[in-house]
């Protein structure tokens, strides 16, 4: 009776060990290794003690080096991000390439939606040079200086750009309204335009080449009495979040 109980216990233990062999083995190894670990650790400490002053110096040097490397990494990451942005800008525009510029200021006057760029006539810009970013058109150069320029954003009330509904080829005039949205006006009451339509530049005169993305229609208004329609358009580019832009060279 007693033997069978011991046997059962052994079988149970064996099964337990087999099922839990990995953690059991790991813990057993830790226990087995403990005396050796303790001895080796003590020996290492004893051997390290005479080298402590030089180790401390080396530690400081390595810390300084680590900080230096971290700074370099951060700079490289920033350079990479800038390069990717520039690349995206150049990829976004199929036609003429231009110069990239950084946004160095924004308007202080609420009713005037402008940005200030760090490129000017010295860099080949002219009045009415078209300014774009990877998402779409931002505006055009309104005021030119040798090393800087003011750009009139397409949301400014004075901005007028001939627009074209990409899907239906309806044309209208995209005007700024002094806030986040623009309006596509001079549309016919029966114009084929609906929410979600993309509006691109029509290329009808003016400085803007055809086919640059202006924005997306968010709402259409139709007035049957006057036979006119207009649409609210959300600009594709986000002027408030711009850092770098592309200034297109004027067409020859």
């Amino acid at each position: 009776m007693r033997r069978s109980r011991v046997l059962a216990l052994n079988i149970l233990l064996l099964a337990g060990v087999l099922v839990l062999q990995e953690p059991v083995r790991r813990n057993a190894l830790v226990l087995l290794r403990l005396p050796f670990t303790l001895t080796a650790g003590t020996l290492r400490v004893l051997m390290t003690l005479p080298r402590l002053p030089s180790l401390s110096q080396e530690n400081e040097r390595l810390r300084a080096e680590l900080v230096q490397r971290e700074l370099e990494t951060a700079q490289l990451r920033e350079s990479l991000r800038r390069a990717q942005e520039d690349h995206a800008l150049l990829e976004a525009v199929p036609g003429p390439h231009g110069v990239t510029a950084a946004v160095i200021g924004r308007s202080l006057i609420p009713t005037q939606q402008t940005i200030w760029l760090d490129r000017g006539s010295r860099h080949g810009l002219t009045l009415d040079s078209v300014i774009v970013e990877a998402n779409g058109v931002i505006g055009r150069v309104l005021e030119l200086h040798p090393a800087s320029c003011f750009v009139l954003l397409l949301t400014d009330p004075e901005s007028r750009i001939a627009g074209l509904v990409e899907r239906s080829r309806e044309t209208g005039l995209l005007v700024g309204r002094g806030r986040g949205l623009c309006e596509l006006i001079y549309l016919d009451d029966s114009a084929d335009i609906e929410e979600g339509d993309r509006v691109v530049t029509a290329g009808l005169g003016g400085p803007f080449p055809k086919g640059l993305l202006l924005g997306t229609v968010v709402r259409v208004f139709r007035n049957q009495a006057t036979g006119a329609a207009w649409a609210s358009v959300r600009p594709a580019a986000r002027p408030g979040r711009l850092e770098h832009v592309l200034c297109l060279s004027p067409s020859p």
Partner: protein
Amino acid sequence: MSLPLTVAFALGLAAHVLLANAFPSPWWVPDLSLVVLVIVVARVPDRWLSLSWLAGVFKMTWAVRFPGQILVSTLFVGWVVQALSRRLDTTDPRTEWLIVGLASLCLTLGALWVEELWTVPLMGLAVVHVSLTVLAVPLARQVLRAL
């Protein structure tokens, strides 16, 4: 003019530029140039002309339209503040709030009028702009006190 007032004036103009760069729309940026102009002229009314010129030219450089109107309106605000300071205590917080609020309201409505931008959304944004400008007054006073 004392150094703290000069520093406060310069800080106000610099902060206005920094905030304009940080916010997505100029409507959300309080008119700190106006706030510091009112606060400083209220304390040194004799310097209203030079201070108004500085603030006016500063704002004018950012204007692509109506720069003259912006300069003249800023000079007018400076003149009004110095004229009021001879009759009542313009350094009183409530008076400062009132002057800044009225000046900001007049300048914003004037800008909407000359630009012919009478739409409901823009009126709402104008209210936000004026409110933010008024709310910046106690902050500017605290900065001035700290200096």
